[in-house]
């Protein structure tokens, strides 16, 4: 063995300069292949004239500039989808934030069967989205909806009743009910995660701080608005960031529950991109629709991270 070999480089496991890149490689490959490449393709597609029948970009004349964006912008359905995406997200997140706060407070209290209730609350999050949405699809079925059945039983639905005379509500068949249903399922879906995040935030508030507030004579509401909520703000921003991005990009709910209907009234950008690009075959416009989300999401993410950091400094 040569004398110049340093002791600590004899084994592979001791060579940081080799090991570092080696361990990072899978992550880099993963991100490039599954995030980077599709993103680049999407951008290329959005500025080209590719279709499902002719997906090749072979030369300069395949690029059409902003034509796709102009085309989708002038499309009424796109505008509807854009408005729906924003409205559904905002409404559902306001509800989620409200309910998650209440739920987290309740669950942080000591009571019998707390573990079971926590488990039940988390359940929707563990269900695959498509499966959960299928469940709702059945719950809201135009003929066999159990909700309708219950309403009929208690005399809310049917001839000579407040919601009658029809025997069904047609939850997914009328504009406002269908939109409400989509929002409801969004709430059902994101509430568990938001609750758990907030619960973690609540638990992280030191016992001493709550005790001090007790000693200082602050009642429930004063503690809530002056101590708990301000201290929860950073983690609430994180929960909201997650939930907004989930809600904004969600395809499954609109696709499985309503297929965008009735008459595109529950169409969102993600589902419209799917219908246009994959089902309609217009890959280029589909990509343009999907890309429309990107700057918004980036802006939201940056804003939220900033907020979280600022609030984090406050409490540090």
């Amino acid at each position, binding site marked *: 063995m040569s004398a110049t070999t340093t002791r600590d480089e004899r084994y592979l496991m001791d060579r940081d300069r080799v090991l570092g890149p080696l361990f990072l490689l899978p992550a880099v490959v993963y991100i490039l292949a599954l995030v980077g490449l599709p993103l680049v393709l999407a951008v290329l597609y959005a500025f080209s004239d590719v279709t499902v029948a002719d997906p090749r970009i072979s030369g300069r004349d395949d690029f059409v500039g902003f034509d796709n964006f102009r085309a989708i912008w002038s499309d009424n359905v796109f505008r509807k989808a854009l408005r729906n995406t924003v409205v559904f997200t905002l409404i559902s997140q306001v509800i989620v934030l409200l309910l998650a706060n209440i739920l987290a407070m309740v669950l942080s209290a000591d009571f019998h069967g707390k573990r079971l209730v926590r488990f039940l609350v988390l359940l929707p999050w563990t269900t695959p989205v498509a499966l959960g949405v299928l469940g709702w699809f059945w719950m809201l079925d135009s003929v066999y909806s159990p909700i309708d059945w219950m309403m009929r039983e208690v005399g809310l639905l049917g001839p000579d009743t407040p919601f009658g005379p029809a025997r069904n509500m047609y939850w997914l068949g009328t504009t406002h009910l269908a939109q409400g249903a989509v929002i409801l399922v969004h709430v059902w879906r994101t509430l568990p995660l938001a609750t758990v995040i907030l619960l973690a935030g609540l638990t992280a508030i030191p016992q*001493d701080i709550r*005790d*001090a507030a*007790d000693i*200082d004579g*602050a009642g429930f509401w*004063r503690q809530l608005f002056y*101590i708990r909520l*301000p201290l929860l703000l950073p983690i609430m921003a994180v929960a909201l960031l997650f939930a907004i991005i989930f809600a904004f990009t969600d395809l499954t709910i609109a696709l499985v529950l309503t297929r965008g209907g009735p008459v595109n009234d529950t169409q969102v950008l993600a589902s419209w991109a799917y219908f246009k690009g994959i089902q309609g075959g217009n890959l280029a416009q589909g990509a343009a629709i999907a890309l429309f989300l990107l700057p918004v999401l980036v802006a939201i993410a940056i804003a939220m991270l900033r907020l979280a950091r600022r609030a984090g400094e406050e409490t540090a």
Partner: protein
Amino acid sequence: MKHPTFRTDRDTMARVETRNLVKQFTASGAPAVNGISLQTTDGEFLVLLGPSGCGKTTLLRMIGGLEKPTSGDILIGDRVVNDLPPRARQIAMVFQSYALYPHMNVRNNISFPLKAAKLDKAAIEQKVQWASSILGIDQLLDRKPRQLSGGQRQRVALARALVREPNVFLLDEPLSNLDAQRRASARDELQVFQHEIGTTTIYVTHDQVEAMGLGDRIAVINDGTIRQLGTPHEIYEDPADTFVATFLGSPPMNLVERDGDLVGFRPEAVELVPPEHGDASSWLHLTLAEAREEYLGSEKLIYGEIDGVRVVARVHAGTPMPAHEGGKIPITVNRAALRIFDKDSGLRRQPASDSVSASPAEEASA
């Protein structure tokens, strides 16, 4: 620190009393507080002293209403407050962590209890000024807690406790997060402060120096029971049992076995030079084996063994080591300085003075 005029028109002076207070956290384990009865006087500075985990904080939290006693009564100003929530007890508490509200500036931290009490704006402002000038933090009112040093945080916590003009202060190791130097001056300030406002104060610490320096009286606690309650002088000079004897003093009291009893004497009671006329009736003669010395500047410590038990003597640094053969040196202790303890129970025999003693045995019969 400046000391502007204090409000002295307190409507209620408060005595705190606990009667046979017990707190059992888990059904199986030993109680954290096991039958503690104590009583403060008006305006007293009472220190709860004991090793970590002995139940001091639990006792304090029960007095403050943050913890429900398993059994026993708590009285504040002669009223049983067991079922009163903390805010109805007219107490203020300073936590070991200070528990400042991290998102509020100093002004809002201090005024928080006043806002909760729905005082009007002018009164709040005036009280904040008053408390912050007493504690010398009026320059810091717009800072956030994270922008403060440990000592400043401690003052803010005190100010927040002070503005409410409580009947009782409860302090849980408020100086333990300060560095040694700052702690000594804070201790001094705290004492001056407490004497001026004259509010009954219960102060928890595991630091005997703090306890001796601050307390009007000290309650020495171990394993959830009071071992002794008395003035610092009584506790030090006339320990009720071997626990108190060895918990206080640094180095603590020496305990050697003689005639079936434990004989205790303080390191500073040891004489290296045998006194003239040192007859055995007033002086105890002992031989220290394996003696070695540790020079500490103003004094020195002599370590050694008697019958295999470690013994420490403290003498002036200038005292010459006596000639010794094989590490053995003769020492003498005035019999007046001896404290005799029962070997089995550890309790003091023939108490030398009328020190208030609350040893476990007496508690049980009370």
